[in-house]
């Protein structure tokens, strides 16, 4: 009888707490979004599964000595996983469109307003009883950069307790870019503006593409060393892609390595989706702020493009400003799609890739600034 009781006490059924059940359902929800709705499946599948694993009673996945505990501390607490992902993203990024039309960098810069404006929002939530410090607010605000690895990197440094909610918010909104952005883009532009056709981009030479990442790194070293972990890994990946002599490394960085790291990153983030860290009012606040950050970033990019049209002779289609919120290449595709609705012969995809990759650099720089000033 005693051993039967002992056996019962070691079952999941006897040890379940309500919070764990709810978080497992959240994990299942993430799996549903990934599998049935195709929302960022590469990350949400391991993240959702990680959320289920970490909430299993008795098994102790996230306690000292557990698998997810090791994965989290080895890869996310140290910042290694997001940085490796950033290297892979660098290896996948073609800066050609940006180099051909450098003024699109201004659009990428303007879209970062979403990050800094959200800082206010996070602090303002203290009025309704939430307790966000400046570090918390900075980590939440970076969701506006629409860049998963950057958000995870910054959150792991500034507010590890909020990491789960921030990562879920960042990736959810990145998946929702095609739903969030178009209404804002249409509201802020006229039909004529959406029809603007842009001049064909010039050819960018190989030498330019090789020197560009080195130049970016050099500038980051001079002006913002705090951003060099992110920018440095990004530039390394990009240099491997463009130099043409290490195709094997470039291929590994953008395929096998990034895939392996994504599995562990997802599991590690999932391990932070425990009931005590996720089921609170702060998570709701973070989800709300994430949407605000995205929307403000999109609006700022579009308005900057309109401002540039007032000043410069060569017109830009303001829709590409919305692509300034990184989320590569989804945001560029959205700009292209909304442009095609207004003018079926106007392919904006390549033009939108300029502000899109500028947004990646912009959010890395913004993360560096937050790290330097708040961290």
């Amino acid at each position, binding site marked *: 009888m005693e051993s039967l009781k002992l056996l019962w006490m070691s079952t999941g059924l006897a040890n379940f707490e309500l919070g764990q059940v709810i978080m497992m359902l959240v994990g299942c929800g993430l799996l549903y979004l990934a599998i049935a709705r195709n929302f960022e499946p590469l990350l949400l599948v391991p993240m959702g599964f990680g959320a289920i694993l970490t909430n299993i009673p008795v098994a102790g996945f996230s306690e000292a000595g557990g698998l997810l505990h090791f994965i989290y501390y080895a890869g996310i607490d140290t910042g290694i996983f997001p940085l490796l992902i950033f290297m892979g993203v660098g290896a996948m990024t073609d800066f050609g469109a940006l*180099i051909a039309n*450098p*003024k699109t*960098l*201004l659009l*990428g*810069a*303007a879209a*970062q*307003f979403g*990050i*800094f*404006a959200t*800082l*206010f929002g996070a*602090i*303002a939530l*203290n*009025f309704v009883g939430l307790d966000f410090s*400046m570090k918390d*607010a*900075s980590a939440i605000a970076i969701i506006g950069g629409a860049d998963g690895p950057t958000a995870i990197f910054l959150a792991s440094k500034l507010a590890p307790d909020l990491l789960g909610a921030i990562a879920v918010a960042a990736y959810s909104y990145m998946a929702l870019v095609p739903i969030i952005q178009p209404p804002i883009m249409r509201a802020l532009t006229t039909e004529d503006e959406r029809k603007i056709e842009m001049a064909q981009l010039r*050819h*960018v*030479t*190989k*030498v*330019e593409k090789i*020197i*560009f990442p080195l*130049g*970016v790194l050099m*500038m980051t070293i001079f*002006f*913002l060393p705090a951003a060099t972990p992110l920018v440095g890994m990004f530039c390394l990946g990009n240099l491997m892609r463009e130099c043409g002599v290490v195709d094997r490394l470039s291929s590994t960085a953008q395929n096998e390595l990034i895939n392996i790291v994504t599995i562990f990153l997802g599991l590690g983030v999932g391990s932070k989706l425990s009931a005590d860290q996720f089921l609170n009012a702060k998570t709701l606040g973070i989800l709300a702020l994430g949407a605000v950050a995205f929307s403000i970033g999109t609006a700022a990019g579009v308005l900057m493009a309109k401002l540039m049209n007032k000043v410069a002779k060569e017109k830009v289609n303001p829709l590409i400003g919305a692509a300034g919120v990184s989320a590569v290449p989804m945001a560029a*595709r959205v700009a*292209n*799609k909304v442009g*095609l609705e207004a003018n079926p012969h106007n*392919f904006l*995809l390549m033009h939108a890739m300029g502000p899109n990759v*500028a947004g990646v*650099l*912009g959010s890395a*720089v*913004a993360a560096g*600034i*937050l790290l330097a*000033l*708040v961290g």
Partner: protein
Amino acid sequence: MENLQQLFIEAGTLMLTGMVFVFTFLGLLIVFINVVLVKLAKKYPDAIVESRASSKRNNNKQDGKSVSPAVVAAISSAVKQYRQQHSAQK
């Protein structure tokens, strides 16, 4: 309340310095592209341009029977892109 006010002032300062810095940094990058990269591009043009010229010569020699691989690649990528766009619209 006073503490909150201080946090707001801090957030405002951070926003201002942050945006100024992001614009300055990316603005400097524009200068870098326009000054350094454009000059480099003129000094060291891509080998492809030369090979195109040479392939033209080759084509002439062969009475235009063969099409250069660069042209084939350009056309096939354009077709692929068009098809992708087309299917995405559907």
